[in-house]
């Protein structure tokens, strides 16, 4: 038995889902989209086992974002036995709108009145029985965070799924008489004669009248479906026109262009109005409000957190703490993983040597496979802590406030306020930042953020940049060089954003429509499960690419057998790349190889340079070797290129995942490389013109 769980965002839907299913969950990607969804099983003590599907949050059945489209398509086209609609009991007026839309679609539905505790704190007394009678569906009060009402909810869902005596339009929203008589009824009558109609005729009639394209398209392929479509159009065109004496609508003059779209809009208002009137009636009959002279804690907090001056200070502090946790405090964990792998690699190599294994096999393990696994696993601490921070900020309601605070400033660089967190977090690591762009509903805004995030230097790049600037520009000059580099990355980000906006993604940022939910403590279980899902999704997709890439690098430097590194295939490739591009920048083959290999994982750049310049180990000797081999101008040019080109293989794979197509990932990577070398070229020319030695 399959039961879909739907609801507005921020109503505790996922908390409820987690409370019902526990850890018996699976996460998957919706076919053809970049939307993830979670299914879970409810242990069955008696009766059929239940499968629950956690659908993305939505405000209405009409889809506004890709996530909402997934919810719509599931509810309309995927087989399921019942729907649980989760509503926030303390925000019923708005929440019941979606519930009414879904009740019109299917009577096999249960309403979960969630967050009853918050409603009670607000002084609301809700009579679930009275509400159930008016709505025509079971209403079950729940407190998902405490596990209250879950058993009753599941029982009600089972009953609903088996409901065979489907009442005709259980909660008929009392639409105005003339709308029902002149528009809905005639179309519904014609539809109910149609064989193969998948949804209730009344509901389908409403969709046709509101011009829902997918419903119309699905109907057009049914026999006689076109006549229902034509009827809907004609009725709409004649709607509101003066009637003839005999009560029939006037025939339209052929030359007259009927204003179907205008009438559709007008009807949309009438329908929404009737729904809200009906909701008001339901609330009047089922909700008692005791006045409480208590100031809403959310309002008090917002007084500080959305303060025109203090709000920005708080945001800075909150983000700083979050990123410190994600990228600084988690670093020792990465270190431990690293050391563990080195130790394991060493032990394996000794064991192989003892067993008489050939040298190349030992080398493959030590320099190919173990570093590959290390590159995969080194992401885990970052990702886990980052997503925990992200979930806490999102779930508590703070993320919406931060988006509100920065939207104005994000617009200056052509991006959406909701992308701010992703953009800032990209300084830590680009890979989870790409996932964090999912808060944006508009696919174009999201794609744009995905394409420009790789220009932001991440932790790994900043580390290499810091080491090299310290070596080449001692003292205050180093700080200046770093600031210059970061300012340059921001300038590039703004310019590239403008470029995309004027070419491939010509659109203004989508309207900011942001609900500011009540603040609440996030549930640790919701956070932990979300972190687990995200880290798992990432690892399961990336490990394959990374391990093959590190093996390829190992092979390039190891073969032909017995040759020193400057005669390896890597050196050959490096020399070819130098001839192709490097020589215009003063880069020798070693720098080109470091750029190429840095594509796999930026963290390895320093050790690659160390090996190639034969400095032995340690940053001090590397700095020494580099300052002897390169002029400051070449080094600075190198840093510019290094900072701006494709961050790493993981970002490309992740970008493919977030954009849904390899072509976007390839385009993004291509623009990265072109912009990096273009900027490097400019910097070098300007440097020479200013009199620096090339």
């Amino acid at each position, binding site marked *: 038995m399959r039961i879909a769980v739907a609801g507005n965002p921020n109503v505790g839907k996922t908390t409820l889902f987690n409370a019902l299913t526990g850890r018996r969950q699976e996460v998957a990607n919706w076919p053809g989209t970049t939307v993830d969804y979670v299914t879970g099983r409810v242990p069955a003590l008696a009766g059929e086992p239940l499968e629950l599907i956690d659908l993305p949050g939505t405000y209405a059945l009409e889809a506004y974002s890709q996530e909402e489209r997934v919810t719509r398509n599931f509810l309309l086209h995927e087989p399921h036995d019942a729907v649980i609609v989760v509503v926030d009991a303390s925000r019923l007026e708005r929440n019941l709108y979606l519930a009414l839309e879904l009740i019109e679609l299917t009577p096999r539905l249960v309403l979960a009145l969630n967050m009853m505790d918050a409603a009670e704190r607000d002084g609301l007394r809700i009579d679930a029985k009275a509400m159930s009678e008016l709505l025509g569906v079971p209403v079950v009060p729940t407190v998902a965070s405490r596990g209250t009402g879950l058993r009753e909810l599941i029982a009600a869902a089972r009953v609903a799924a088996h409901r065979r005596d489907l009442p005709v339009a259980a909660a008929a929203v009392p639409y105005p008489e003339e709308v029902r008589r002149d528009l809905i009824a005639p179309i519904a009558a014609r539809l109910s004669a149609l064989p193969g109609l998948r949804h209730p005729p009344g509901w389908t009639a409403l969709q046709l009248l509101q011009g829902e394209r997918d419903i119309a398209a699905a109907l057009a392929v049914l026999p006689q479906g076109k006549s229902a479509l034509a009827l809907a159009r004609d009725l709409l065109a004649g709607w509101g026109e003066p009637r003839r004496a005999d009560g029939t609508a006037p025939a339209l003059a052929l030359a007259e262009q009927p204003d179907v779209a205008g009438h559709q809009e007008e009807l949309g208002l009438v329908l929404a109005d009737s729904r809200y009137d009906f909701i008001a009636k339901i609330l009047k009959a089922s909700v008692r409000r005791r006045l409480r002279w208590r100031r809403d804690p959310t309002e008090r907090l917002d007084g500080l957190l959305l303060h025109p001056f203090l709000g920005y200070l708080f945001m800075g502090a909150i983000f700083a703490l979050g990123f410190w946790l994600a990228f600084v405090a988690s670093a020792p964990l990465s270190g431990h993983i690293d050391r563990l792998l080195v130790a394991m690699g060493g032990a394996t190599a000794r064991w192989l040597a003892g067993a008489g294994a050939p040298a190349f096999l030992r080398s493959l393990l030590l320099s190919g496979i173990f570093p590959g696994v290390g590159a995969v696993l080194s992401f885990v601490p970052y990702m886990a802590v980052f997503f925990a921070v992200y979930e806490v900020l999102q779930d508590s309601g703070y993320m919406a406030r931060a988006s509100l605070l920065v*939207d104005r400033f994000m617009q200056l660089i052509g991006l959406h306020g909701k992308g701010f967190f992703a953009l800032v977090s990209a300084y830590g690591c680009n890979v989870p930042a790409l996932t964090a762009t999912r808060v944006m509903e508009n696919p174009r805004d999201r794609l744009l953020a995905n394409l420009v995030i790789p220009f932001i230097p991440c932790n790994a790049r900043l580390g290499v940049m810091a080491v090299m600037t310290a070596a080449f520009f001692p003292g205050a000059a180093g700080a200046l060089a770093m600031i210059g580099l970061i300012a340059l990355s921001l300038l590039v980000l703004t310019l590239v954003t403008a470029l995309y906006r004027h070419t491939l993604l010509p659109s203004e940022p989508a309207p900011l429509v942001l609900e500011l939910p009540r603040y609440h403590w996030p549930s640790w279980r919701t956070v932990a499960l979300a972190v687990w899902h995200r880290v798992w999704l990432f690892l399961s997709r990336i490990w394959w690419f990374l391990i093959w890439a590190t093996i390829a690098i190992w092979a390039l430097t190891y073969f032909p057998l017995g040759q020193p590194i400057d005669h390896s295939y890597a050196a050959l490739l490096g020399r070819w790349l130098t001839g192709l591009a490097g020589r215009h920048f003063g880069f020798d083959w070693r720098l080109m190889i470091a750029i190429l290999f840095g594509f796999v994982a930026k963290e390895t750049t320093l050790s690659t340079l160390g090996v190639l310049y034969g400095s032995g180990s340690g940053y001090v000797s590397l700095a020494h070797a580099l300052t002897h081999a390169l002029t400051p101008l070449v080094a600075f040019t190198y840093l510019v290129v290094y900072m701006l080109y494709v961050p790493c293989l993981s970002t490309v794979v992740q970008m493919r995942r977030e954009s849904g197509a390899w072509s976007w990932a390839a385009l993004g990577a291509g623009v990265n490389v072109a912009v990096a070398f273009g900027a490097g070229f400019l910097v070098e020319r300007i440097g020479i013109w200013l009199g620096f030695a090339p």
Partner: protein
Amino acid sequence: MAHSLRLSDLPDATRAEVREIHGHPMFRSRMLALGITPRSPIRVLRRMPMGGPIEIEVRGTRLALRLSDAGRITVTVRA
């Protein structure tokens, strides 16, 4: 006596009623789903600095809209 103005021009904390919603059909229907319908009571709670978005309260929920989008909604204030 009632006068109408754009939501973006509505002074903070003044109670008003929604009159009309303009703009793209998608934007309009999303406003309807969020409870911004003709005759619904509405008020502005706060504004972000430098022409940033405004926070509004409508039907018991709080929403943020950009000034340019709020300009597509007209409201009536009963004097």
